[in-house]
């Protein structure tokens, strides 16, 4: 009999919560790590040149001639495109979420700390921005400045600002009632110092969760935009455009649609699970029923 046998059966709620949270973070984290790994590896190595057109090997099936996932209609290696496409996906996500967080968070904290008409103006502007979904914004910007990865990133980022502002404001409102803020104010700390030293660190965890969820939405938006021709321009590989190029060949070579499709879904699933898991892990009070 070992010491382990004397432990109570792992049926209590805390244990199960820990277990489940771990599962979400583990599965989500693994999927995200795979995407990151593929993207990073693509900088130094891909099985083939991702943009090399090879007329002799057009539409080669999977596992043939060293093409792990086959080739597309131009003879480009699908596996290599997928790896470089991961780079595009992550790049767009990082910039878009970065833009949204850097603009949205201060706005939300400001609205939460200031209150009154300033809060009202910020939140109404937020509502207005809400009426311009990323897709619409990107199509508009694309019509004006031409489609590119940059316009897609800016459009997705700007459209994501309201999400960060709302969450930051809500959390700030909660924090402002706590005793440590009262103490800091009584000690004569400036508003900026309170925002930076007391509010931000205390709302950071929920902003990280928001970043993870927003990242998933950004991946979906980038894929949709590239699919419509408003995102990444050829020849730079992008999962959304791989899907769009595969559509005409759906009857003969469905593999070309499945590969980027599964990649998009798994990446989004990864970031969503990671966000959910982190939410539970960082703040059990906010846990949704799942």
């Amino acid at each position, binding site marked *: 009999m070992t010491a382990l046998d004397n432990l109570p059966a792992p049926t209590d709620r805390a244990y199960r919560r820990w277990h489940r949270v771990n599962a979400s973070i583990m599965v989500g984290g693994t999927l995200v790590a795979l995407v990151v790994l593929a993207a990073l590896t693509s900088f130094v190595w891909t099985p083939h040149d991702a943009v090399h057109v090879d007329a002799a090997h057009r539409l080669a099936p999977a596992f043939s001639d060293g093409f792990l996932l086959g080739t597309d209609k131009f003879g480009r290696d699908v596996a290599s495109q997928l790896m470089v496409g991961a780079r595009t996906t992550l790049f767009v996500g990082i910039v878009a979420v970065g833009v949204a967080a850097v603009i949205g968070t201060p706005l939300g904290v400001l609205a939460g700390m200031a209150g009154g008409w300033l809060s009202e103006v910020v*939140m*109404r502007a937020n*509502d*207005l921005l*809400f*009426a*311009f*979904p990323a*897709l*619409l914004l990107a*199509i*508009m*910007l*694309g*019509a*004006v400045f031409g489609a590119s990865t940059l316009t897609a990133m800016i459009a997705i980022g700007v459209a994501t600002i309201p999400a960060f502002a709302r969450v930051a404001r809500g959390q700030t409102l909660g924090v402002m009632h706590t005793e440590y803020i009262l103490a800091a104010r009584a000690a004569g700390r400036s508003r900026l110092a309170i925002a930076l030293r007391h509010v931000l660190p205390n709302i950071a965890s929920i902003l990280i969760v928001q970043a993870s969820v927003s990242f*998933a939405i950004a991946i*979906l938006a980038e*894929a*949709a935009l590239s*699919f*419509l021709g*408003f995102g990444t321009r050829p020849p730079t590989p992008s999962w959304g455009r791989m*899907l769009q190029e*595969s*559509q005409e060949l*759906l*009857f003969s070579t*469905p593999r070309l*649609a499945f590969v980027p*499709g599964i990649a*998009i*879904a*798994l990446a*989004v*699933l990864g970031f*969503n*699970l990671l966000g959910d898991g982190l939410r539970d892990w960082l703040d059990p009070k906010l846990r*949704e*029923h*799942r």
Partner: protein
Amino acid sequence: MGLYLLVRAAVLVVSTAVASVVVFAVMAVLPGDPAEVALGVNATAEAVAAKRTEFGTDRPLTTQFLDWVSGLPAGDFGVSYVTTDRIGPQIVDRLGVTLWLVLFGMLMAIVVAVPLGTAAAVRHRSVGGLLLSGLSQVGVAVPAFLAGILLVYLFAVTWQALPSGGYTPLAEDPATWLRQLLLPSLSLGLVQGAVLSRYVRSAVLDVMREDYIRTARAKGLGLYRALWKHGARNAAIPVVTVLGLQLATLLIGAVVVERVFTLPGLGSLLLDGVANRDLLLVQGTVMVLVVAVLGINFLVDVLYALLDPRLRGVR
């Protein structure tokens, strides 16, 4: 309630006005001159100037804006620079297709979400419930256009049961119309249904813990019957709100799905407008979509207040 409605309505009007300025301003930044685009590179300066006068683009921006915006309430979106057709009738013409798509998409979402979410809540402790929750997680991760492509592969390519695209007006041939709308609305509805089912599950779980359900069960009602008779209305409040917010997502999702299934809706009109550099058409279509989203958000706010009076004081 009257004051709340008034304030929300005022916010809607102001937001719409500001949105029209934003849409106009973004499109006015454009580097190209519509007159030059219309006439091509070999046009003389006189011809371009004449064309500018014809389009009215030689006037100050504020005049152009007021001229454009004053026509909007009456459905006058101006005349296309490219086709010289009136834009209003084109938008009305395409709006029907998109509205049918969104309506069916929403119905599909409800049909998917309510049983899935309820079952996942009732069995939340079992493997089956966990699997259902996992299924909805996967559904959330699939973009609508990908769902569309997969559905085309299954129903049009493999089983050849439904058409892969195209549109026949309802009045012309109702059976074909329905068959052609099924896959597009299913691809919108499945994804939104997955999102919605998570809220249904959460709402049903909350309701299941209420005393009145325990009382109903103690009276001898089965779980599903107790939920239906006493829980459904209470669980509906958060679900209806989410459903309202999803309407806006469905509308924008329709833009992409229309492209997958070559449906002649607002989305196709918008994308064709961009492709042809038909800026006034793009401007008008974007404005319609933005006003629709603003209007939906307004209705959700009002509905929210009607369903739950406690929320009227908030915000």
